[in-house]
């Protein structure tokens, strides 16, 4: 094997331009595949990270009567959090209500959150205000849908726990830009403590978000949903995108492999005499087959090396600067940010190297098998057609 590798290496280096063309194409394909996967992984990671940062934290506890999927459960789904240490939780109180921007009525979810929390990345510091008007923050999607702008004063209306209507004018202190539609669309974030007293629900919460330090034991009135469970649907979508993309790189890889195959077939034809010579020098045919296979496979190894030389700085740059995604694609329900930072993991690259090398070895082996059937005498004469 060592001999085959040495020989193959020398043969390839000796072949010059032709080798570099093949290596170039394969390296390019390799880079593209790694890039695509890295992009998807980066997106995935980012979507997950953002979802965790803005919405999930380390997990959610829902009041046993509150089911986030069931709007009917909002009314009674709240209780007092019986946790020793509240520093590791962000309590959220959810109420249904309406907002009246410019005389139009829109149903909305009102969510109370402590202004001073630090578990979620929501800009809740804007919820601190000395003014009489209650400050509120909304996401850019809702701002757009409702045509409410930062700085606007709008009236919201809800019913308190006893059913009495209540309405106040709130001040939109901040329209925040985040990639997680589920903390944005159709909801208004309000400071928890005034919101609790407004709704007559002092000390009550519909749910709470925890951080890593939180002691995740059982709390009888609260149902726990881990971060992992919460992230599942997101993962599903990314998986589906990945599967779709794989077709593309199968085709791309196909082209690179075609280049190798093509080179192999012709080089076996052109190097008949060489093959004959190897045989006359005492190589077995299988050794010669191995030599040519290794030679083909070596394209892929050199391609990987070339790709690494080009790719490492390139991908490093890309993963630092990110890729700007056109604004429009953000309107989908998926969490996708303006800038996606591709994520290139070692396992991704290792898998891809394996894939490319194996595939290249395969296509090199196929034409090389022909050598085993060659008559060395004819080969020496260069007479095999």
């Amino acid at each position, binding site marked *: 094997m060592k001999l085959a590798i040495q020989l193959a290496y020398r043969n390839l280096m000796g072949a010059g331009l*032709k080798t570099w063309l093949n290596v170039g194409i394969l390296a390019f394909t390799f880079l593209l595949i790694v890039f695509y996967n890295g992009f998807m992984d980066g997106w995935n990671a980012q979507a997950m990270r953002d979802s965790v940062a803005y919405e999930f934290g380390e997990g959610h506890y829902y009041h046993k009567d509150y089911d986030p999927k069931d709007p009917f459960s909002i009314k009674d789904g709240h209780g007092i959090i019986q946790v020793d240490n509240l520093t590791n939780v962000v309590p959220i109180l959810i109420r249904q209500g309406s907002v009246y921007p410019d005389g139009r009525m829109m149903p909305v979810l009102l969510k109370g959150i402590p202004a001073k929390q630090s578990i979620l990345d929501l800009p809740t510091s804007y919820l601190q205000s000395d003014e009489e008007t209650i400050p509120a923050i909304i996401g850019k999607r809702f701002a757009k849908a409702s045509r409410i702008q930062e700085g606007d004063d709008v009236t919201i209306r809800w019913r308190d726990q006893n059913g009495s209507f209540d309405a106040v004018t709130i001040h939109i202190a901040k329209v925040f830009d985040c990639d997680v539609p589920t903390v944005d669309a159709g909801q208004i974030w309000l400071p928890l403590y005034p919101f609790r007293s407004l709704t007559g629900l002092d000390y009550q919460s519909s749910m709470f978000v925890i951080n890593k330090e939180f002691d995740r034991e059982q709390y009888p009135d609260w149902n726990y949903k881990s971060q992992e469970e919460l992230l599942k649907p997101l993962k599903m979508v990314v*998986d589906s995108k990945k599967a779709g*993309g794989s077709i593309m790189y199968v*085709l791309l890889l196909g082209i*690179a492999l*075609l280049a190798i195959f*093509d080179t192999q077939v*012709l080089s076996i034809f052109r190097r008949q005499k060489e093959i004959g010579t190897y045989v006359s020098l005492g190589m077995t045919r299988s050794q010669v087959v191995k030599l040519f296979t290794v030679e083909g496979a070596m394209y892929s190894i050199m391609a990987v090396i070339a790709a690494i030389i080009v790719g490492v700085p390139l991908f490093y740059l890309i993963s630092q600067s990110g890729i700007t995604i056109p604004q429009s694609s953000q309107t989908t329900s998926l969490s996708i940010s303006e800038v996606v930072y591709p994520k290139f993991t070692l396992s991704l690259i290792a898998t891809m190297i394996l894939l490319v090398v194996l595939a290249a070895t395969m296509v090199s082996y196929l034409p090389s098998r022909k050598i085993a059937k060659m008559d060395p005498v004819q080969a020496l004469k260069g007479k095999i*057609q």
Partner: protein
Amino acid sequence: MIAFLLKGILRDRNRSLLPIIIVAIGVMLTVMLTGYIKGILGDVVRQSARFETGHMKVVTQAYFDNMAQLPNDLALDEVAALSQNLSEHYPDVDWVQRIKFGGLIDVLDDQGNSRGQGPVAGLSFELYSGAGSEPKRLELSNSLVEGVLPQASNEILMSYKFADKLDLALGDEVSYLGSTMNESMAFSIFKIVGFIRFGVPQMDEGTIICDVEDAKVILDMDDASSEILGFLPKDRYDKKRSYEIADQFNVSYQETDDEFKPIMLPLAEQGELKSLIASAENMSFIMMAIFLFAMSIVLWNTGLLAGLRRYKEFGIRLALGESKGHIYRSFTLEAVMVGIIGTVIGTLIGVSFIWYLQVYGLDISGMMEQVESSLMLPTRLTAQVTPELFFIGFIPGLFAMVLGNMLSGIGIYKRETASLFKELEA
């Protein structure tokens, strides 16, 4: 001359078969990738067209201004006349009516008391009432968990999780309570004939699908519809055409100030699809350029090698008194023929494959964890046969190949006649 060369190509398998196969495979891959990229990048557009926007959408001005709230009270009226008008002016376009609505679903127990209730979003399409284009377009059958599509009045599909929650079986009847276009009470009984999976949690939690004619009856929308969607022939999006039609249509209502006048929105003008489409086009162009470049290099390589293999033959031909120029030209001509044959074969195979994908799709659900076929999250890959597929393969297949051959053929001039002879002896 051509006939003579063709004979050579066809008889000498070394001269023809391998290069043709390689050109064909390369061209096939090019065509497939082009079609696939077109398909995948068009997917967002297609998905949006299917469910949301059509290729063109007609709504009232007022509805448009409040689109986010699905204000059926601002729906189009006199739609029969409007539809007729549209069909007459644009007979090639498939004009379909759709209504979305909200409401409450109530399930009775044996005693006639309510056993369960839940809010629903209703989607209505021309399922059995129309020309049959909608069920196909929406691929509803693929997303059915169980049951069949509505065939008759008041039959509905229900999202499977919602049905689960309400403990409903096929054939069960549910009451619907909602509000009509005129904001009065809407009442109906629906029979569940199928369970459907949307793949989007919110939709799976509470959605029903019924025929648009049922929706009209229930919602008091006789001769009214929230939206009329237009789909271009074969459901193929054509940006230019959609703008043309929309502009033409809107001009005829230019004079009216009525806030309920119909306006037509081409797909790209709805939501933020415009920039999305632009970026999809850019992406697809870049991908194609990269790919064509790679493929061209491969086939160029093939061309080069093909030339190298034939020095001996050139020696013989020189010996027979052929001029170098003549050999070079015939060699090039041969490459052209091989290129054409390979490209045609590759294009045919590639286009067939893309056509297959376009018509039948490729199920990729196996490649995904936990994803089953659903309406909003397609598990089938699709592609699109576009006119350019038929010529794009010629760039690598013919031009790159011939150029590679021509370059390698320059060796004919470089070499001394004598050395060619010598190789002949060897």
